[in-house]
């Protein structure tokens, strides 16, 4: 993990044409209006959330440059922020990002075993994506649900009081849904902003 972050390849611009959908553009406008004139940069974090959701689940250089253009700031200001916060992904991720909590309160309630089980079941190490591109497994710090430890979050959904059986069930369901295809866009954005 550490090595990967330190020796990250210098990212390349691909020069792709990026543009938000009409619906997202409306959201963007609405979000920017929440901050005083001249302080549009405040909208950066929410905008990056929208961008990540809309463009394949991660923030490519092109996407970040696009957000910089919208907010009229330098691209480096976006890179600085995107690399600081752990919820922004800078590399492609699977369709579902599984965030398993690894912090103390979960760990003493079986969280470590859950992570190991997930790694075994998905045949990936923490931080990796399954070969079918369906799941990316990330071990994250405290999700603020210690009362129902061990917990994980997939996309916006919290899964609590995890057991091996429960994990089986959750993953099977998501796999089945994915096979049924029709990438039903989650509605979280509607509620989120």
């Amino acid at each position: 993990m550490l090595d990967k972050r330190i020796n990250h390849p210098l990212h390349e611009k691909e020069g792709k044409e990026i543009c938000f959908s009409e619906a997202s553009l409306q959201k963007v406008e609405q979000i920017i209006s929440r901050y005083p004139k001249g302080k549009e940069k405040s909208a950066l974090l929410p905008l990056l959330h929208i961008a990540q959701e809309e463009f394949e689940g991660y923030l490519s250089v092109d996407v970040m440059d696009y957000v910089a253009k919208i907010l009229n700031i330098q691209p480096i200001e976006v890179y600085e922020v995107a690399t600081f916060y752990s919820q922004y992904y800078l590399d492609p991720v699977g369709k579902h990002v599984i965030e398993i909590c690894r912090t103390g309160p979960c760990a003493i309630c079986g969280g470590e075993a859950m992570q190991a089980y997930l790694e075994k079941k998905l045949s990936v190490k923490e931080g990796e994506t399954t070969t079918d591109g369906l799941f990316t497994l990330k071990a994250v710090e405290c999700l603020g649900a210690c009362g129902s430890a061990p917990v994980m979050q997939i996309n916006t959904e919290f899964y609590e009081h995890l057991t091996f059986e429960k994990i089986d069930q959750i993953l099977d369901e998501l796999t089945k849904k994915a096979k049924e295809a029709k990438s039903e866009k989650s509605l979280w954005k509607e509620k989120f902003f």
Partner: protein
Amino acid sequence: MERKILLKHLDVPGIRTFGVFRSTGGYRSVEHALKNMTPDEVVEEVKESGLRGRGGAGFPAGMKWSFIDRKSNKPRYLICNADESEPGTFKDRYLMEKIPHLLIEGMICSCYALGANTGYIYVRGEYKYIIGILNEAIREAYDHGFLGKNILGSNYNLDIHVHSGAGAYICGEETALIESLEGKRGNPRIKPPFPAVVGLYGCPTVVNNVETLANIGFIVNHGGSEFARYGMGKSTGTKLISACGNINNPGVYEIELGLSVREFLYDPKYCGGIKNGKELKAVIAGGSSVPILPANLILQTAAGAERLMTYESLAEGGFVSGTMLGSGGFIVYDEDACIVRNTWNLARFYHHESCGQCSPCREGTGWMENVLHRIENGHGRQKDIDLLVSIASKIEGNTICPLGDAAAWPVASAIRHFRHEFEEHVLHPERCGRNEIGKLENVES
């Protein structure tokens, strides 16, 4: 008879919605404040109440409000700190999920008291569904004329917006939160100046925790002195405690400050005792950054007095034998817990969450994690234990923000109270075996 302020109407069906909330007396404080009180009078009531910040530091809320620069002609802001990220703490999330209007109501009164026309709720990015709940509640408040222009015909205007973070514990520190809200990296600012003078966009700003703000409605309705009748001494009011770890009933409890730790821990109304009939080993009483205490010291002070759930009682004995009420994240460890492994785990957390701005925290947190990892995995030496104490003592107090202290305290306190366990890990690393839990070969499928 236990008395409640925040969760009184928790069990009323539909309390999350405006209509039901209103029917239980919700938003009455807004009417009262806007019609019958001046902003200064509201501030006075909050001072009178003795309400202390519920985010962790316990600073008197009324005093914080009185620091706001009233001479400045810049706009003022109130920010609700809903970046709850301290391991073991999940009470704000509970409150926002169950009774979001309690926060909105408190924020309106607070903004009015501070003369702010804009309020932001900074919610940690992980609580995405909470953001949905809050937005819905805010929309309802606008619809019913409690937000927006000319609220209740009082000429007072107020907008409240929700702002999402994106995964950074450090943004719970108020100046880092402000930076983040401005669209920057969450680097804490160097203080002074304090946010009350130079805050968001350089304007006077107050940052308060969710639970703090949720109490304001009660204080406006019933007066600060009534609030002060709850609790004990300088620990007025009630406190939401989020209990977790090896207990029978993990969850969020509203307790009146002054309850004994023993009762909270063993009464079936609360934690209900240690899970699986095991023995209590240790407790972290106020979120992962406060000192861990062994069973004997959490139930009784070193002087033999009953330990109570108050700011003062938990702190009794200083860091030698006491701890802090902190954010109210109550983490319980049973006899099987490995203190070394847990300390390493928490050190890893603070290492991961250090912003990297100042050298003691940036370099020291990683160093501590590495040394603890070595000890936990059987490569430690006796001198490593003293090395850890030394590193922790050099981080503590020398950093820009309290994250340095938060990283140093768990390590220093674990060694202070469980040194023998660290030594055991150095001398006989094979005996503990708790580090085997997370290993793949031990997972049965």
